[in-house]
């Protein structure tokens, strides 16, 4: 510590400069992580909340399944007849409307059977009733000023949805969710604007079938027979609009930051170690053990990297607080601590690249005499 801290103090300008870079990298990693989690939640939290283990889409839908897949009641019934599987059809589509008081509402319409395991649990107001045309809205919509008792009128279709209750935060494709009976959902999904109310009854089709299957259930055979393609719930996240693209973008930013961090720290310590060769040679000539010089360099690196990472993480957390709920940003403490650990590890890995030069300083250069 004696040497390490005195050298740190003597070169505080240089270390501060390097520290600032690490602070910024750590802050950026924290902020990008916050957006990755936040955007992910915003895209798939409704799916994550589904009390289902699997989702069966129609076999012809390979991408964007929630938009493209259509299954009929026979398929849903077929799944329901499978041994060890509970099944209920569900509908997903994105629409918009406004309340009688003129509050505009973007709505991810989730059609569910009010008597099934998909029925949303309400935090206030009442739950969905079979038959009726009500909607249970997620908290974000309530936060925008929509109340129980209001009526949401779907744009152009004129379908009227009395707000029955409010459930927790839930969104799909960056749009807050409203849960409604399947019949209501089908009218929204399949009606032609202008023909509202008049046309024939909508087709008995759904987006997919939500399944609850025990651990051992084999779903492949039923998929074959019913013409569906079943994904585990978490795999179905990729079927949500934009989810995969967002993940790839955010994770490649993170990947680059994790590559930059060790290179920056490594480059700094490489230059620092080269500059210090005369001192290291002197210390070796005075009999300093190699291990002690290594420890001394590591203490310096750890001090700067850990302190800067903590400051950077603090900045990221502060940014999260400042942004509030206006943007999809979520940085839980565990993610933050993970960030600190990962940036610290990356920084120290960068130092490790230079350690050989620390111990290879040649004490015989002290004999030169003309320094």
């Amino acid at each position, binding site marked *: 510590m*004696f*040497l390490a801290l*005195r*050298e740190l103090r*003597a*070169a505080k300008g240089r270390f501060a400069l390097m520290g600032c870079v690490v602070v910024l990298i750590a802050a950026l990693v924290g902020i990008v992580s916050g957006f990755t989690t936040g955007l992910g939640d915003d895209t798939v939290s409704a799916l994550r909340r589904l009390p289902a283990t699997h989702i069966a889409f129609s076999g012809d839908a390979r991408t964007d399944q929630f938009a493209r897949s259509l299954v009929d009641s026979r398929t849903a019934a077929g799944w329901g007849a499978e041994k060890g599987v509970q099944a209920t059809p569900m509908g997903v589509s994105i629409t918009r409307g406004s309340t009688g008081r003129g509050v505009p509402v973007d709505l991810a319409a989730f059609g569910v059977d009010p008597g099934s395991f998909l029925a949303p649990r309400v935090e206030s107001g009442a739950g969905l009733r079979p038959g009726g045309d009500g909607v249970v809205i997620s908290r974000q919509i309530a936060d925008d000023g929509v109340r129980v008792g209001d009526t949401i009128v779907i744009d152009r279709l004129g379908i009227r949805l009395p707000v029955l209750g409010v459930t927790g935060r839930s969104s799909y494709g960056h749009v807050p969710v409203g849960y409604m009976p399947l019949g209501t959902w089908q009218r929204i999904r399949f009606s032609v604007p202008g023909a509202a109310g008049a046309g024939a009854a909508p087709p008995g089709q759904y987006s997919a079938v939500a399944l609850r299957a025990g651990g051992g259930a084999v779903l492949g055979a039923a998929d074959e027979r019913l013409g569906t393609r079943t994904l585990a719930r978490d795999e179905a996240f990729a079927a949500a609009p934009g989810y995969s693209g967002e993940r790839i973008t955010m994770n490649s930013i993170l990947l680059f930051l994790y590559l930059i961090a060790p290179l920056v720290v490594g480059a700094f310590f490489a230059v620092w170690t080269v500059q210090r060769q*005369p*001192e290291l040679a*002197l*210390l*070796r*000539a*005075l*009999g*300093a*053990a*190699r291990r*002690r010089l290594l420890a001394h360099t590591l203490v310096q690196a750890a001090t700067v990297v850990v302190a800067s990472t903590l400051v950077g993480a603090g900045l990221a957390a502060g940014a999260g607080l400042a942004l509030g709920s206006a943007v999809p940003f979520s940085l839980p403490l565990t993610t933050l601590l993970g960030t600190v650990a990962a940036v610290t590890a990356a920084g120290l890995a960068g130092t490790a690249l230079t350690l050989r030069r620390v111990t290879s300083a040649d*004490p*015989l250069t*002290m*004999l030169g*005499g*003309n*320094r």
Partner: protein
Amino acid sequence: MTLRLEDVTVVHGKGDAENRVLDGLDVEFASGGLTAVVGPSGSGKSTLLAVAGALLRPASGRVLLDGTDLAALNDAQRARIRRERIGYMFQSGNLLPNFTAVDQILTVAHLTGRRPGRHRARAEELLEAVGLAHRRGHRPEQLSGGERQRVALARALFLDPPLLLVDEPTAAVDRGQAGALTGLLVETAERQDCIVVVATHDPVVADAAGRVVDMARLTAMST
């Protein structure tokens, strides 16, 4: 307390660049007075000190410091001997930049696993003995060449080593200071029970030495 080099040969460089510097050298040093090693530049004075100081392992021969053969030790063992039993003053570049005079001395405490904070009084005492009590908080760039060498001397004496090796102490020092520094070295050699070997081509130092070893004659005898 003795230091004996027996049949020591040092080879600098390899292949075509091979340079045999000491060739079967025999020489012995004892405590009680300053020994000067003299000879023209390139005659192997620094090489002799480096071998005696466990910095350089000879190609062959034995280097006996109180019976221990330094040439037979491994790298880590020689580093340990250097930090615990040998004081070394180099021709220049002795001090760590940005460290105060006191901290230069306390570095030895640190390197030998002591707590520097507990040895501040001893460090200041050593600085006072070399006449630099008033310079204890000064960094190398604030000291003259002679003062730097005196800080290096104070540091070399921190552990009362049995062997003090000094390479061209007056090379980067003005004439007035050279005399004072030589006086300090002679005084050290007489007061401490310690072998003091000074490599020099400065007559001021050689004249003050109790014994003079001439590289030209040593190497002539051994060939």
